[in-house]
């Protein structure tokens, strides 16, 4: 056969070689023993170096520096010989849950300890993805927690009487108000539902975009927070879809449409938009989480800021009484069951939740502020957040956050229906019936 090049091969030869290569590749891919042996083989001439024990902890970006400072300050690695790697988790529960579920299903985990919120705790502990912590926690740990924190932990950090998370951040929506505006108009800060409703007449100037109050109520867990807050004030749990929830929905509707107290556009706002409106002098008072205090005091609001503009009052009392005027939400540490460094993770978690380290953590940053007795005793009393926590604790206004065993799914049902009712797409009765039916289907 004539050839134009010495490298030319026949078709038969090409097919034979290609077939051999494919068979070889397939064999290698399906021969784990061979591959594993190759992977584990030590490179010739490289001395074996003993690696330190290590553990990975995932925190939100806002807490990264605090955690690094805390570990350095307490010298955990020096004391234990365990290297700690602080990695960032995403700040949305949706992304985080996807990441964790995928990893756990594969029998591994992207990190050993996670700093996580209520929604994730409920979902992951019920899915049996988290490690029970009762065996590694000191028996007197809970003595240091305030009764409210203990009650909260029993609902939000346990499943089947097993603890899956120890909380370090425990904060609640704060009742912020413009003291300068109230003083100017000679009116007192509203302390009851009726007084709140009456504020529409005092402050709302719809034509100029000024409202007595505003909130971030866009769907996606924002609206649910407000529904839970108001229903708790009405004396119930929205997930029960009982009379208190009905009263709460009617009240919110009236605040928006009858009294013109609450800006209806809140339904399409998130917290950033809400905060932006407040510092633009469009809102007289509002419910908002403590991070607003940092935002108001930040450099970008330096010209606007004055203590009288961000005064803190007790939340209004509803038909349910003072004990449920507000509720906290929490973040805490837990261990993923499929963690590759389980023993090290247990050591680090025990260390982080100990009384001494909890106090040190609070000194590092207010992300670690909570109502533990030791923490509050050592907290700087001139700090606005400490004062607020003390004020709310002393006044006994803190209730337990309304719970549902399938929280993430249930809150979506609440939001879909409540949002439809508040925008006149559905009657109140239809809303309640449909919500109840959908929640029943979850069981």
């Amino acid at each position, binding site marked *: 056969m004539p050839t134009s090049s010495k490298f030319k091969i026949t*078709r038969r030869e090409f*097919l034979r070689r*290609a077939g051999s290569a494919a068979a070889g590749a397939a064999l290698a891919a399906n021969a784990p023993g061979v591959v594993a042996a190759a992977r584990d083989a030590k490179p010739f001439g490289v001395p074996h170096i003993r690696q330190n024990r290590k553990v990975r902890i995932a925190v939100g970006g806002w807490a990264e520096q605090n955690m690094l400072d805390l570990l350095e300050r307490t010298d955990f690695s020096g004391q234990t010989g365990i290297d700690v790697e602080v990695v960032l988790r995403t700040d949305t529960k*949706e992304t985080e*849950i*996807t990441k964790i*579920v995928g990893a756990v*299903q594969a029998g591994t985990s992207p990190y050993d300890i996670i700093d996580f919120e209520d929604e994730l705790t409920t*979902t992951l502990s*019920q*899915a*049996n993805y988290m490690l029970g912590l009762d065996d590694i926690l000191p028996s007197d740990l809970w003595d240091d927690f305030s009764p409210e924190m203990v009650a909260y932990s029993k609902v939000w950090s346990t499943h089947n009487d097993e603890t899956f998370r120890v909380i370090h951040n425990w904060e609640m929506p704060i009742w912020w108000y413009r003291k300068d505006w109230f003083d100017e108009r000679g009116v007192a800060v509203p302390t009851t539902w009726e007084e709140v409703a009456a504020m529409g007449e005092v402050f709302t100037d*719809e*034509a100029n*975009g000024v409202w007595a109050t505003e909130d971030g109520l*866009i*769907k*996606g867990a924002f609206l649910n927070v407000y529904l839970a807050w108001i229903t708790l004030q009405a004396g119930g749990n929205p997930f029960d879809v009982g009379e208190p929830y009905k009263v709460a929905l009617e009240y919110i509707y009236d605040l928006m449409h009858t009294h013109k107290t609450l*800006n*209806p*556009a809140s*339904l*399409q*706002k998130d917290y950033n*938009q809400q905060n*932006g*409106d407040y510092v*633009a002098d*469009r809102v007289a008072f509002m419910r908002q989480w403590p991070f607003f205090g940092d935002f108001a005091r930040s450099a970008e609001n330096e010209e606007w800021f004055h203590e009288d503009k961000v005064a803190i009052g007790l939340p209004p009392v509803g038909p349910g009484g003072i004990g449920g005027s507000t509720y906290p939400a929490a973040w805490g540490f837990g261990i993923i069951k499929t963690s590759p460094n389980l023993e090290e993770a247990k050591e680090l978690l025990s260390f982080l939740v100990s009384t001494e380290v909890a106090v040190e953590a609070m000194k590092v940053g207010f992300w670690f502020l909570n109502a533990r007795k030791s923490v509050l005793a050592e907290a700087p009393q001139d700090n606005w957040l400490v004062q607020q926590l003390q004020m709310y604790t002393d006044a006994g206004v803190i209730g337990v956050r309304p719970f549902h065993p*399938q929280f*993430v*799914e249930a809150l*979506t049902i609440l*939001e*879909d*229906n409540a*949002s*439809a*009712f*508040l*925008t006149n*797409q*559905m009657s109140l009765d239809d809303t309640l019936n*449909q919500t109840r*039916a*959908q929640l029943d*289907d979850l069981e």
Partner: protein
Amino acid sequence: MTSTLENGAVARRKMAQRLPSKATRRRYLLFVLLVSPAFVLRLATAVYPIVQTILYSFRNYSLLKGTNEFVGLENYANLANNYGVRGALSFTIIYVVASTILGLIVGLLIAQLLNANFKGRTFARTINLIPWAIPTIVAGYAFRWLLDDQFGLIPYWFTEMTGQRMVVFIDPTYARLTVILVHVWKDAPFMAVVFLAGMQGIPLDLYEAARVDGANAWQRFWHITMPLVAPLVITMGLFRLVWSLASFDLVFGLTSGGPGVATSVLALQIFREGILFFKFGFASAISGVLLLLVAVIGLVGLRLYRRFDVTY
């Protein structure tokens, strides 16, 4: 005996004649070898997921609950009772059809404009693509701010012009309209570029002949441009329909499906049920409905496409 042997030899010869020749068999083998990588790839990335999704849709597969039993058509029956899915299905159809038709019209208008001779035409063609180049999720969040009742640029202009306040997202009709219009704003430029390419391929002689015959601008557009870019319009329309059916990022960023479920779409429901709640069975049933919609639209589109045979 001899006769039997002879008969057998004849039969074997006939069979050998019916079998393909050695060369033909080699060609078949080569064909199989060359086609199989693509075939296996499509099998793994398209056929397998689709079949698996359909199978899941008949099970109560929930990763977090740990259930995975065969439940027949229960998931499909539950679709009809689910408020979120019902709302999403109705808006998906409105959203997909309206935004595609509007997108095609606006795209054609932009293309017509960009096809004209004017100074700065290249610059205009370039900036035309900016909305399309913006990631959809970014556009969603950006428009949420642009339409904010307090600080949004658009409500501000509206108030300046009419003296009325504009609060779009608390009214289901306005919210739906807004989602559709933002989608058109985002995608029409890309369609325009495709149509522009088609328009530039139309021989100028046709227009000159029509002009000589006394055709006005509208007649030239309707009787020359439109028929000749019709296959592109059908193709783009088909693509847009299918892409829109699968898209959820705009809705997620702009309205999160609210108010109520007024702007929710099927893809958003699949995301919620599958990724947030890990109810793979139910999410697969919604995907099944979406698949059916895509298939129907695809078939209609292909039939339409065959109707248009462009000849110059």
